[in-house]
């Protein structure tokens, strides 16, 4: 049988950077094919070539055995190739139906075609169990449902080859499971799926074959049944990765943070956080697990001073944090920093750095008042020394302090942020999504840094949507759902199913009862 897609000797360079070098492999019809690799391994470039965004410098793409010169995404769609991007391409304030019809209206009169399209969408939803209401508005849908709309769109446009770029990055465990159900159904119907991911577990769970890429080249092509996570990880990174990082025995010190009865309501009175209460001690890592959007971001924003709570108390080192009597949080983060609270924000590019500032300028971001002389001017000599020291200690690459930080990879940007916050010697460190958009090699070094900080006696509160990360770092786990804490458990009670249930909103007592019943 002809492979659905075949890459033959694809090379693509951006200047001196060889994004793809002599890439050849085939994807069997009716299979789920995984493409894995670190950030910058060339996965996305290759898929962009298949989808017509880029043209290869040399080499050929064959679709259904026929050499094709795909120059635009229109041509790719015409060949039955569909792509679900990591960042959804949906108009938020339009309905599912209108989003599907967008660019595909089939004439001037929209209303006339709506009925027919809606019927077809319902039929597709039924067949593939997509569970999407064509008349719902996008911004009312959960992230998982929005992704299903993207998939629906591709099927409606009769895609037979579906490319999914990091589809589970934003999904809960449950949503991921249901996505995989849908993908399996596709496979049964003879469709071909290309899954781009860096999560080994997913590769093992759902793919038939895997192609591993590193530095633009194919470094491995194996059948999933004949490989293991460890082998894939080694191929991907090119060296064995440590799964258990060294850490001192759990020996927490004095109480650093005490949150009680914390409340947050938005402008419309909708509760974003309800009755949040927990403590955090020196030298321990408490990790908040939860699906993104369940109040973790808001909690960290409040604790870092970026946002005011609408009720409750927070004590830091025995003293109430100064929320009271304020109408806005303007300037509050500076006060919190001075008290000894460091913050690595979850959305690096939105909050953590100024993209257009140099690496050096970003190493004083948030501490700009600490590096000025008595004239209010920056002491650039001191800043440069400090920056050189941090870049070396945290292995920031490339080692050029004058480079705009926006030009660094996500992992290196994150290293700069963490270096900056660590350098301020905080007593409490808040970390949101420590390794979002960071490649495997860097994940390990960031985890090592955080654990070292813990061993030095810093209290760390981190939130992560990656359960693996929670398991790797936490001493205790807080699970949040719907703006409430549904459970607090020590790490030795870590259990994916249990946490999954708590994340889904079931309370700890109920979960324990269920488990006892089994």
């Amino acid at each position, binding site marked *: 049988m002809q492979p659905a897609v075949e890459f033959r000797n694809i090379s693509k360079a951006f200047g001196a950077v060889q994004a793809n070098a002599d890439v050849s492999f085939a994807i069997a019809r009716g299979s789920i094919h995984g493409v894995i690799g670190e950030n910058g391994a060339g996965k996305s470039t290759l898929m962009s070539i298949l989808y017509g965004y880029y043209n290869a410098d040399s080499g050929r793409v064959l679709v259904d055995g026929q050499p094709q010169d795909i120059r635009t995404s229109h041509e790719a769609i015409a060949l039955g190739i569909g792509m679900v991007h990591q960042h959804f391409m949906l108009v938020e304030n339009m309905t599912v139906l209108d989003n599907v019809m967008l660019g595909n209206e089939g004439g001037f009169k929209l209303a006339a075609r709506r009925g027919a399209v809606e019927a077809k969408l319902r039929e597709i939803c039924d067949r593939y169990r997509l569970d999407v209401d064509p008349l719902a508005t996008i911004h009312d849908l959960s992230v998982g449902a929005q992704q299903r709309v993207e998939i629906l769109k591709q099927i409606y446009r009769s895609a037979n080859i579906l490319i999914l770029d990091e589809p589970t990055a934003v999904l809960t465990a449950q949503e991921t499971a249901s996505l995989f159900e849908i993908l399996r159904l596709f496979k049964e119907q003879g469709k071909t799926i290309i899954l781009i991911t860096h999560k080994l577990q997913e590769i093992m769970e759902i793919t038939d074959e895997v192609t591993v890429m590193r530095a633009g080249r194919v470094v491995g092509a194996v059948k999933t049944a004949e490989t293991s996570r460890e082998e894939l990880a080694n191929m991907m990174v090119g060296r064995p990765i440590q799964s258990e990082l060294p850490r001192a025995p759990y020996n927490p010190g004095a109480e650093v943070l005490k949150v009680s009865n914390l409340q947050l309501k938005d402008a419309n009175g909708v509760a974003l956080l309800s009755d949040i209460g927990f403590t955090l001690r020196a030298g321990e890592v408490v990790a908040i697990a939860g699906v993104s959007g369940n109040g973790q971001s808001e909690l960290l924003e409040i604790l870092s001073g970026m946002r005011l709570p609408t009720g409750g108390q927070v004590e830091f080192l025995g003293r109430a944090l100064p929320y009271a009597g304020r109408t806005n949080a303007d300037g509050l983060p500076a006060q919190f920093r001075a008290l000894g609270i460091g913050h690595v924000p979850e959305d690096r590019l939105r909050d953590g750095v100024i993209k257009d500032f140099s690496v050096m300028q970003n190493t004083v971001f*948030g501490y700009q008042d600490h590096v000025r002389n008595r004239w209010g001017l920056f002491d650039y000599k001191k800043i440069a020394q400090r920056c050189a020291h941090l870049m070396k200690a945290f292995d920031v690459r490339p080692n050029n302090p004058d480079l705009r930080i926006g030009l660094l990879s996500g992992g290196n940007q994150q290293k700069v942020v963490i270096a900056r916050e660590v350098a301020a010697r905080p007593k409490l460190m808040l970390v949101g999504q420590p390794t979002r958009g960071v490649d495997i090699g860097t994940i390990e070094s960031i985890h090592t840094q955080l654990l070292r900080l813990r061993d030095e006696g810093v209290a760390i509160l981190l939130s992560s949507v990656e359960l693996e990360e929670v398991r790797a770092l936490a001493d205790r786990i807080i699970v949040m759902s719907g703006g409430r804490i549904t459970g607090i458990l020590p790490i030795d009670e870590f259990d994916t199913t249990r946490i999954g249930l708590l994340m889904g909103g079931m309370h700890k007592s109920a979960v324990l009862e269920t488990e006892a019943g089994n």
Partner: protein
Amino acid sequence: MKKTELPRWATGFVLPILNLMSALLVAALVIHLLGESPSESLRILVDSAILDPEGLAYTLFYASTFIFAGLAVSIAMQAGLFNIGAEGQMYVGGLGLTWAVLALDAHLPGILMIPLAMIGAAVFGALWAFIPGYLQAKRGSHVVVTTIMFNFIAANVMNWLILKLIPEGQQNPASRVFADSAALPLLNKAFPFLGDAPLNISFLLAILALLIYGVVVWRSSWGYQLRATGLNAHAAHYAGVKISRTIIVTMLVSGALAGLGAVNSVMGSTHYLSLNFPAGAGFVGIAIALMGRQHPVGIFLSSVLFGALIQGGFDLSLEKPNIPQETFIFIQGLIILFCGAMENFYAPTILKLINLTRIAKEA
């Protein structure tokens, strides 16, 4: 490696020059259509605005006002605020200095009168910018809209106030003439070759202001917070910057700089407050800030360019009756078009050229 963005020398130097050349080329075409020789016109322009010492002094006199206007717009731009209201702030600044002078010029010597008048100009300009700044910071009303409106309000309020200031028996819609104690020292006292040009100490103040601006924006903690706010307000908040206060203070500084722009012409040349004296200088400030990319050197060079166009334009229209004086405004518009709106028009081409030469070198 293939470059995806232009190096600094290209954005800071090549691009503005190309844009300027394009504007002048279109201007040359129009002059040609008017039946005059573009090359001769250019010669007259350069002769009278740059090469002749007195002409150059006039050029720098006009440039002094423009530098303040350009700085006013630039500092607001650094904080992400588009202050269209420099014109109105300068106009109201003129009122501030005039009130100080009218009240005190008979009693105070120049050494006290002049600084006091300058403070009056700065304070009034700042106050006029405060309201839009406050509304932006606290209520989210966009400064572009409010500052435009405040230009109109300033124009009409000033119409009314100047009527009150006209001394009895005077035809000219202006205040009385200031006493000598309020006249800025002219530079031609020290440098006689400058002729009759009213180039005065406010030119030196403008240079000083450029230097202070450069240091404050790029070397001070406050300037850092200002630029952070302009580039990414979310991140600035994370970094502990008081966003509303930064916005308000920036608008105050911007308005004060625009207000100081009034000092040059009112106290250095006319010596009275007249109707609509800024004559568009505040708007020229927008062009200067865009063309000079909010950099002190850029602001200085573009201010001199616009000063030269005014000075050269006068002489050109005298010598070439076919070229009306409004041609200057026309050329000014072209420069704004090419350097502002079409700022990056040539960027893709330059990028391509750079990459081609690099590939050629590598091969």
